[in-house]
């Protein structure tokens, strides 16, 4: 596993999930005042716990030392969360802003419905990565599973590895950048010309995510917009 991108500036306050209930830890993190001086936090022994560091609204850094269960950093709104391990389903689901950095692999529905912020996954992400995303940026350095970007509404999904079956099914206005090739495209998803604007977005995201990749090696996929209106001739796709 690689190192986190932004090591905390000062010694973090460490919570031990083996001895302290999740409720206490989340309550403290959620109640932090906007301009707290305590900007570095760490959580030891997560051991697959669910809903760790959810709903934090202060731009503090939280590093989680191990694997987490479902919905880690769910609805995050401003915090910088690093998971030194793998993440269960729905990591950073419905994130509003901030960053979530998974050093290992992520399970299904990573970044589901997220509105903003940046989700970086160093390893692979499972099925439905970026499902219904609503503005978030997601960078997956490995591959993603089937139905990734399903009904994705806006934002950018960057995949350095291979995308599984039915990529971008029923896509709305999100951009999907893929370097390693696709298995198949979902309904209404098509390859788009890589415009300068799109390439600039990609370059910025790769840089932010610390990804060593050349934007020129990526293909861009977007919505063919044929399903935007109900039409008899589209019956097969519905």
């Amino acid at each position, binding site marked *: 596993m690689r190192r986190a991108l932004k090591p905390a500036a000062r010694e973090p306050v460490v919570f031990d999930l083996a001895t302290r209930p*999740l*409720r206490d830890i*989340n*309550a403290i993190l*959620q109640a932090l005042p906007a301009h707290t001086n305590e900007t570095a936090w760490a959580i030891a022994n997560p051991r697959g716990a*669910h*809903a760790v560091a*959810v*709903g934090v*609204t202060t731009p503090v850094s939280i590093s989680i030392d191990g694997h987490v*269960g*479902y*919905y880690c950093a*769910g*609805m995050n*709104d401003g915090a910088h969360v690093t998971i030194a391990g793998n993440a269960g*389903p*729905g990591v950073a*689901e*419905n994130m*509003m802003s901030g960053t979530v950095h998974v050093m290992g692999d992520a399970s*299904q*529905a990573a970044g*589901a*419905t997220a*509105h903003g912020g940046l989700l970086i996954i160093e390893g692979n992400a499972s099925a*439905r990565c970026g*499902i*219904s995303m*609503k*503005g978030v940026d997601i960078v997956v350095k490995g591959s993603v599973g089937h139905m990734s970007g*399903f*009904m994705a*509404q*806006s934002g950018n999904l960057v995949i350095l590895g291979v995308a599984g079956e039915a990529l971008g099914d*029923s896509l*709305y*206005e999100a951009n999907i950048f893929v370097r390693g090739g696709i298995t198949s495209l979902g309904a209404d998803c098509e390859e788009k010309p890589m415009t300068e604007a799109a390439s600039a977005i990609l370059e910025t995201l790769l840089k932010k995510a610390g990804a060593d990749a050349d934007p020129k090696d990526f293909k861009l996929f977007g919505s063919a917009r044929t399903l*935007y*209106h*109900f039409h*008899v001739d589209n*019956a097969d796709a519905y």
Partner: protein
Amino acid sequence: MNETSDPRIPQTRPRFSATFDPHSIAEIQRAAATGIYDIRGGGAKRKLPHFDDLLFLGASISRYPLEGYRERCGTDVTLGTRFAKNPIKLKIPVTIAGMSFGALSGNAKEALGRGATAAGTSTTTGDGGMTPEERGHSQTLVYQYLPSRYGMNLTDLRKADAIEVVIGQGAKPGGGGILLGQKISPRVAAMRNLPEGIDQRSACRHPDWTGPDDLEIKILELRELTNWEKPIYVKVGASRPYYDTALAIKAGADVVVLDGMQGGTAATQEVFIEHVGLPILAAIRPAVQALQDLGYHRKIQLIVSGGIRTGADVAKALALGADAVAIGTAALIALGDNAPEWEEEYRKLGTTSGAYDDWHEGRDPAGITTQDPVLAARLDPVKAGRRLANYLSVLTLEAQAIARACGKSHLHNLEPEDLVALTIEAAAMAQIPLAGTNWIPGKSTGF
């Protein structure tokens, strides 16, 4: 027709088929012409076993009634007593069901908030997020957590008084939402993060969980996000009410919301509305049974909906074991939907007041199911809110009148024993004896 033209011989008159009735024929013709199914609003329109098929017995020698205007008959209800730090306390057991801003105009949402607040009850957001008008005018607001997650955000989640995880609706158990392009105005589009004017389809499954074990973790997350303060409701369309209720209990719900097939929708395929799901009459007892079997009846509250119109319906739902009811269609009618004053305009739309159900088209003459600013301006939210408050008050007074007649000092004291069924079907579905017998089909072998 007879071949003869002799006027003295009786003619065979044109006869419509009961199977290929005029409605079926017109639908076949429409389908053949367009190639697409019919979409409409409202709930199941065909006749179904319903609360009308039950009667209250009233007091007699064996039990005595309460004085109509003197003796108290309580109506309050507390929802979310299982885990939430801040359960919801309502004055009346009639709540306003979730209906989205998008399906409804901003004025209509405001009017619902005003009316509900005046009556001391809650209102509910819908598939489109929370609007400031709605939050501002609703003393108690339930925030829906739907598969689409349109407009879902942490700030609004924390502003809510309760959270309703929507798994299904009675009009379309197993179906997602539809909002056609005419109603995707710039504001609706922005709230949902969608291009303007598209025909929007919302997902039927939640994006980040499937199944009851996942739901349990999702509920844990929602509680962690909101400091364990807010009651978490789980709403299901009536299809397998015993198991759905049991699984919602297992997943940690504070309140179960059960919506029957008469329940309204803003837009769904007609075939779905009329052919999928159970009438609410058939769904309440299995849900109550699940609560009882697991020791949670009255500890986890049950809200039922789908075709509630009168105080008698409210009283019957509670007597069957519900803690509260929710209303959608009736609330819209109270605001002014289908009002005769717009008859001329209904005619222009090819319908008539009382039958208008093209709520998905956004051309509602009453200004309720529309995003057209000119039409929406027709609805005065203050006056419409007052009408809704009046109606809620009548529902409560009617339910109380019945409860007093049955000798009950609180609406929650109504019980199945107060009821009889008029038909064998209703007796079987509601597990209530057929009137004049002690026979419950499938349960007892009485006379």
